[in-house]
């Protein structure tokens, strides 16, 4: 029998090859059984997650996830086994992993399903998206998208501001004209009658100017028609994993407290994700200045019909002179910042009929919170 390099491996070699493959893979590979217990945990996982194999093998995989996935994961498996509805299996998506030291990091997780004899297993492959190359290209994409949305929002903001500014004098012109007409209405001098006619025409032109402004504003606001009912948690989760790309070196612990009972929220998903992206990146920057680096992201639903998301950091907090003018354009704490991020966030949130607020935490740090109205489908 031929044993050259191009011959298939023999059974004995296969077992050894399997070990080599698993342990030289750059991506993390984890195999779990049908109840979520870890059966295989390769070398790359040790590097990514910080746990030694003996700390993980035989234990529930949820120990490697941040909340709320940690609590939910058993249900995810159970749901899949009863409904066979694929949410991640065979698809893969960006999620958050948690290192042994408590820090969270973004990763691309793909999950496959298989059978060992008659035992069902799931194979997860973890690709650390914080790696330099990936970071660079992802960041570029995100920034390009942000820049695009920013431009559109600036245009919208400018148009709204312009409309408001022009409507004031137009209102005054209209009022003065009608007041003047009324003041001289008692006189029937032919000159006054002629002047009345001219004032009528002036009022007509004023109304026309108002109409032009209204049409311009409608045109700019039409692009907001991409709104649909979305799951707020999922929308935020996606944006967070993007925002934390490159943040793993920063050693930040992200704590997610998601309320699972929020009704769908009518929104432009991309715009809301831009808001989340901005708030999280601001928090990450603020946290660079302190030693305890925690970011708590909480969602919920209020009785008054608003869904909210809050972003609470343990950073140094905002200087008073900045805090009071926070949402105005060109106000910033950053050396290189333009100071438009939060004003854009503000205009996006208020464009959704919501509110964006910032409050100082008791123990230092800042909490940003946006509320969006939940309108029945």
């Amino acid at each position: 029998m031929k044993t050259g390099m191009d011959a298939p491996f023999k059974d004995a070699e296969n077992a050894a090859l399997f070990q080599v493959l698993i342990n030289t893979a750059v991506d993390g590979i984890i195999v779990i059984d049908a109840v979520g217990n870890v059966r295989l945990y390769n070398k790359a996982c040790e590097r990514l997650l910080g746990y030694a194999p003996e700390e993980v093998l035989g234990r529930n995989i949820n120990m490697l996830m941040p909340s709320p996935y940690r609590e939910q994961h058993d249900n995810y498996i159970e749901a899949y086994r009863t409904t066979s509805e694929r949410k991640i299996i065979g698809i893969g998506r960006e999620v958050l992993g948690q290192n042994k030291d408590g820090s969270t990091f973004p990763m691309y997780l793909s999950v496959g399903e298989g059978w060992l004899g008659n035992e069902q297993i799931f194979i997860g492959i973890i690709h650390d998206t914080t790696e330099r190359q990936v970071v660079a290209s992802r960041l570029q994409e995100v920034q390009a998208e942000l820049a695009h949305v920013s431009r559109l929002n600036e245009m919208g903001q400018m148009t709204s501001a312009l409309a408001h500014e022009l409507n004031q004098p137009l209102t005054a012109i209209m009022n003065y004209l009608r007041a003047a007409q009324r003041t001289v209405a008692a006189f029937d001098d032919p000159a006054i009658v002629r002047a009345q006619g001219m004032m009528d025409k002036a009022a007509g032109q004023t109304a026309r100017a108002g109409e032009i402004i209204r049409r311009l504003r409608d045109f700019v606001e039409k692009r907001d028609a991409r709104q649909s009912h979305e799951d707020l948690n999922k929308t935020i989760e996606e944006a967070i994993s993007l925002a934390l790309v490159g943040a793993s070196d920063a050693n930040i612990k992200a704590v997610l407290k998601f309320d699972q009972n929020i009704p769908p929220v009518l929104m432009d998903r991309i715009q809301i994700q831009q808001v989340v992206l901005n708030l999280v990146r601001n928090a990450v920057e603020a946290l660079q200045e302190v030693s305890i680096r925690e970011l708590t992201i909480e969602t919920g639903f209020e009785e008054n019909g608003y869904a909210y998301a809050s972003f609470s950091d343990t950073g140094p907090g905002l200087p008073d002179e900045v805090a009071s003018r926070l949402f105005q354009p060109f106000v910033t704490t950053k050396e290189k910042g333009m100071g438009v991020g939060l004003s854009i966030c503000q205009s996006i949130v208020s464009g959704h009929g919501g509110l964006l607020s910032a409050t100082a935490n008791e123990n230092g740090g800042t909490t940003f919170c946006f509320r969006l109205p939940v309108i029945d489908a």
Partner: protein
Amino acid sequence: MKSLSIEMIYIVDDDDAVRDSTRALFEAYGLTVRDYPSANHFLDDDRTRERDGLSCCLLLDLHMPGMSGAELLEHLKESEISLPTVVLTGRADAQLRERVMRAGARALLEKPVNSEDLAQTIRQVLMDHAAD
């Protein structure tokens, strides 16, 4: 239909030209006008308490520095002051309309307002108010 006369118009608007011209408009129609550059000026004016028994109407701008028009409305509602109010704003979408109405406004008009529309709205608002 019972005829309704308006005896007093309050104007709260931070824009000097809008305030002055609105005043000129109503004075030209022989009404008594009191105008205020901010919500706080309005609340601080003791004379506004004399209006009992008068047929009054408040014209309120929404976007003002300090206390906004919406906040003033909510304040009036909390203080159980019943004053028929027409809100004027540069932009009026369905959501804003709902919010302002919930805060107690009777009508919402978009600037620039045609004076016939304004007069008609005030008439209607006072009629609704009298019917309550």
